[in-house]
């Protein structure tokens, strides 16, 4: 059984490598875009508490929407292929980043902020020199969750022609070929674990010495 599976992997190595690369590229693009949108949004929420519940509400609602439904809804608007797929994965990766950025920035000990203010720091200085550095580990943890989720969601976008490892999984299901399903699922798992490791390393890297 296991040797059969290994044979299959060797036979399909080209496909598996190609789909893994696509998978990684798609998830990576989505994560980057989600960071570029999510972190500034989280900061905005902290600075303007009145909009925070609105933004969080929208992000929560989008997250709660079943991914297949979102896909069916996006295809007539955006079409199929790479771009709509990246957008879909981005949407799902946003929430943990927004939430953690907001929580990280607001959860800082009041005494530290007061000390900063006492030293005559401007709001901008407080943000860049106190709040963000102290919140970074929490923000990074959010990014890490988002990254692992993104790798998972990327398997779904094979259904809208973006390729990736989902391609092998869905093909395997329609052919009732469990080897092919595994050939897609196992590399997807490995990618998720790998990304988790990389981001956990980055998390430690950006944690300020003072709070390690």
């Amino acid at each position: 059984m296991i040797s059969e599976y290994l044979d299959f992997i060797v036979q399909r190595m080209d496909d598996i490598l190609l789909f893994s690369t696509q998978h990684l590229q798609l998830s990576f693009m989505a994560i980057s875009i989600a960071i570029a949108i999510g972190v500034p949004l989280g900061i905005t929420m902290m600075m303007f508490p009145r909009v925070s519940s609105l933004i969080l509400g929208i992000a929560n609602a989008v997250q709660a929407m079943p991914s297949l439904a979102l896909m069916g809804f996006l295809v007539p608007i955006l079409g199929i292929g790479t771009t709509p797929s990246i957008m879909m994965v981005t949407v799902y990766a946003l929430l943990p980043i927004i939430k953690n950025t907001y929580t990280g920035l607001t959860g800082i000990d009041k005494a530290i902020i007061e000390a900063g203010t006492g030293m005559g720091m401007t709001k901008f200085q407080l943000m860049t020199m106190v709040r963000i550095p102290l919140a970074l580990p929490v923000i990074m943890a959010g990014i890490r969750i988002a990254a692992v989720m993104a790798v998972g969601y990327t398997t779904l976008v094979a259904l809208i022609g973006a390729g990736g490892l989902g391609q092998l999984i869905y093909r395997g299901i329609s052919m009732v070929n469990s080897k092919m399903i595994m050939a897609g699922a196992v590399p997807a798992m490995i990618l998720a674990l790998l990304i988790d490791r990389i981001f956990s390393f980055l998390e430690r890297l950006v944690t300020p010495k003072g709070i390690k």
Partner: protein
Amino acid sequence: MNKKLAIFLSVLLVATLVTGCSLRGRKAEGTIVIGSKNFTEQVIVANIVADLIEVHTDLKAELKTNLGGTSVCFEALKRGGTNNGIDAYVEYTGTGLVNLLDMEPTTNPDEAYEIVSKEFKDRWNLVWLKPMGFNNTYTLAVKESFAEENGIKTFSDLAKISDQLVLGGSMEFLERPDGYQGLKKVYGFNFKDTKSMDPGLMYTAIDKGEVQVISAFATDGLLVRYNLKILEDDKRFFPPYHAAVLIRQDTLDKYPELEDVLNKLANKISNEEMQKLNYKVDGEGKDPSEVSKEFLKEKGLI
């Protein structure tokens, strides 16, 4: 700390740019995008269409297979290959008539083809090329041994004992007016339970005995692999589902040679042949692109 953060951000930025550029891959002029739904037969015929195009024209064919069902394919087709969509895929007349046009099913294959040809042209500027020959109608299948033991040959036979059986069907089948919803009324089926599942998983379910009857396509290769028997639709409920290439008119305008090339497939694939092709993939584990090339060579088309 700030230095580290700067390193992290710049690494992220560079990586994003690199992957972004590599994904961008501009679509070359003269590329036809062929889509397919997410079952084996569709992937095979999409490969056949793509191979024919590449061999007989100077155009390139790009495959987008395993798209999530009729609606994804159709919406993508309406957008077109240059607009994050596709230019052509293989559709079935019955599906076009009942699902996409939302019209009453008919049992006459020619009439079905005429209606879809006219309506698709008028409503969406889409063209149905000549039917390929096979009729991939919905049907119900049971295990051969089960059919023998209970003496079941037709849907009417099955209806008599349906209250003791569980039906497994694809979600699409269970919901479609030309699927289980209509079938129930015509034959008076009264299954103990119906379970909806992915088409591929139905076969494992009937093999394990979790369901006794499944919805199937007449040309399914898995029917052979799992020793299943197709029952006769004795009241002729299911409309015909003849397969044909559905293509955008503007693609044909741009590349007029496509019509003749793709019409080479007219009446070239019978039900038995399609089932054999499906079996090569589902039963023997061959690659759809390999099966497509074999078939085209056999028919002298490449």
